[in-house]
């Protein structure tokens, strides 16, 4: 039985108009299904990150259509898109982007509180659960700027998980980490995908990482050459 389509890109193109008109993403169509662990690879400057930010709904300047959980992202207001990101998408970036003013627990809780689906106490419980899955529950009370780089990235993953998103998007999640921490992050992703059926879309130029995912989307010069 075919699994539900989580994300669908239909003829997605993007053109940089300044200083001269350059087409950086060229007419890409592909789908990602529930539970898939997908990586996008390609050389630097091939447009893989640009594509990811279009898929993330943060970049709205593109042609074509984007469907997330069966819903088109075309013609949505900024507030509606923010809501969709909050509810359906989790993000992990190369840099952790934790709020240094808050504790680890607060950082994980923020998107949950913003979603406002569960009462605060329940969000706290969920956040602690997520931290436990990632093996860093004991860090919950620490300030975010007082933990190590690998730990920070794991907190960022916990934050991405808090609202049970349809898909987690990652931009070079291991790019800033040493080998040991990079492997650990990979294992976490693998486990999430296989045990929890969490859909993951990872942009990486780390071929070893990509080869271990379920499916590789390879890009060259703004175009997907295999998927």
């Amino acid at each position: 039985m075919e699994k539900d389509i989580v994300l669908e890109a239909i003829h997605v193109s993007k053109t940089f108009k300044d200083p001269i008109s350059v087409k950086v993403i060229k007419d890409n169509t592909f789908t990602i299904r529930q539970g898939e662990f997908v990586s996008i690879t390609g050389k630097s400057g091939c447009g893989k990150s640009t594509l990811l930010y279009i898929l993330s709904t943060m970049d709205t300047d593109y042609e074509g259509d984007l469907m997330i959980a069966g819903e088109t992202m075309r013609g949505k207001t900024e507030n509606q898109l923010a809501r969709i990101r909050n509810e359906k998408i989790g993000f992990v970036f190369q840099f952790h982007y934790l709020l240094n003013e808050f504790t680890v627990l607060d950082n994980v809780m923020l998107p949950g509180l913003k979603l406002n689906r569960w009462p605060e106490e329940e969000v706290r419980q969920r956040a602690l659960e997520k931290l436990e899955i990632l093996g860093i529950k004991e860090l919950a009370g620490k300030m975010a700027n007082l933990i190590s780089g690998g730990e920070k990235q794991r907190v960022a993953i916990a934050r991405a998980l808090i609202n049970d998103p349809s898909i987690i998007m990652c931009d070079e999640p291991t790019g800033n980490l040493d080998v040991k921490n990079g492997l650990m992050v990979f294992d976490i992703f693998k486990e999430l995908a296989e045990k929890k059926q969490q859909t993951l879309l990872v942009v990486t130029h780390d071929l070893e990482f990509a080869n271990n995912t379920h499916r590789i989307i390879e890009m060259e010069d703004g175009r997907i050459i295999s998927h």
Partner: protein
Amino acid sequence: MNFKLTFKIAKALLLARWKQTLVAAIGVTFGITMFIALLSFMTGLNDLLDGLVLNRTAHVRLFNDVKPNPHQPINGSDAYTDSYNFIRSIKSENSRLEVYNSGAILQALRQDKRVKGIAPKITAQVFFNDGAVEITGVINGIDVVAESNLFHFADYVVEGVPLDIRDVSNSIILGKGLADKLQANVGDVVHVTTGKQQQFSLKVVGFFQSGMQEIDKIQSYASLATTQKIMGKPGNYITDLQIKLTNIDQAPMVAKEYRHLFNTDAEDIQTANAHYETGSAVRSLISYSVGITLLIVAGFGIYNILNMMIYEKMDSIAILKATGFSGNDVNRIFIYIALSIGLFGGLLGLGLGYVFSYIIDQIPFVTPSLPTVKTYPIDYNPVFYFIGGVFSVITTFLAGWSPARKASKIDPVIIIRGK
């Protein structure tokens, strides 16, 4: 949007840079403090200076002026009704200075609801004899009780008991300057000569100091009866009726009405003392503009600090937006930050402003011309506190508006990809 969450984030950002925040808040506090202290002090001084004259001036004064009769015979002639009649060198008529039919007028005034009180008065020009020297002076015949109630007469009597001029026959309260010239002490007897060359001896029962030397050198006060006796006039002789109204703004209208009703001259306080009104208005204007300038400067401080905070917190703003906070949410976070600075700084400023005013109020301010004033005058008007509070919130809101807008417009892609 969850108010509690927005507030929590605003608070965290604020406390993360608490030193900057404090500086911004102190800017507002300073502005409000000075605003309150300045306005309280300036208004206090204004009221004092105005009071110097206005407290002792009737709102409406009824009297008969020495002037030419407007009804000249030629105007009554049928032959010239259609022409302009130019008459030169008209002399003032030898009319009486007294207010005619004063008893009936008094009765009518007491019926008038707009009138708060009436103090009748007689002005008599006399010479004070000091050996061979004659000093010109004026004796004001007053009803001492009415005069004290309406025009604070008793406040300005620096020596002796005001009521003595009513209770002791042939007594007088001399202006301090006049007494110095006459070398008279309380209990002494001074001699006066009236315009009709009649001599009287009057007992000095007190001194009077108005705050204006020119007045103190000339004026003196006696009871109505004593003055009537000096002038050789009957008991209903009154030259001035000083009226105080419940609402001072009605004075010009009431004066106009009485002029027709009682057929006397009537002068209202606004006409008589126009320059005082202007002075007060200008002084208030200056204090308000200085106060508001201070607040605007504080506003620029907040603007700067918020702008800096936004540059520092670009990453945080970007990730908030990536994880589902909309531009409006970010906007609100920064508006809350600005308003918190304004509210906190403003409230502290109101408190400090009060303390400052209170301190100024304790500073001794003794001057011989103002016998009732012991310390600097302060007007603790709640309106100033209200204006200060409202302005602190408005300025900080305006100062926060543009940085908050800028923060809400930050494109998270640019920030996140830029790393």
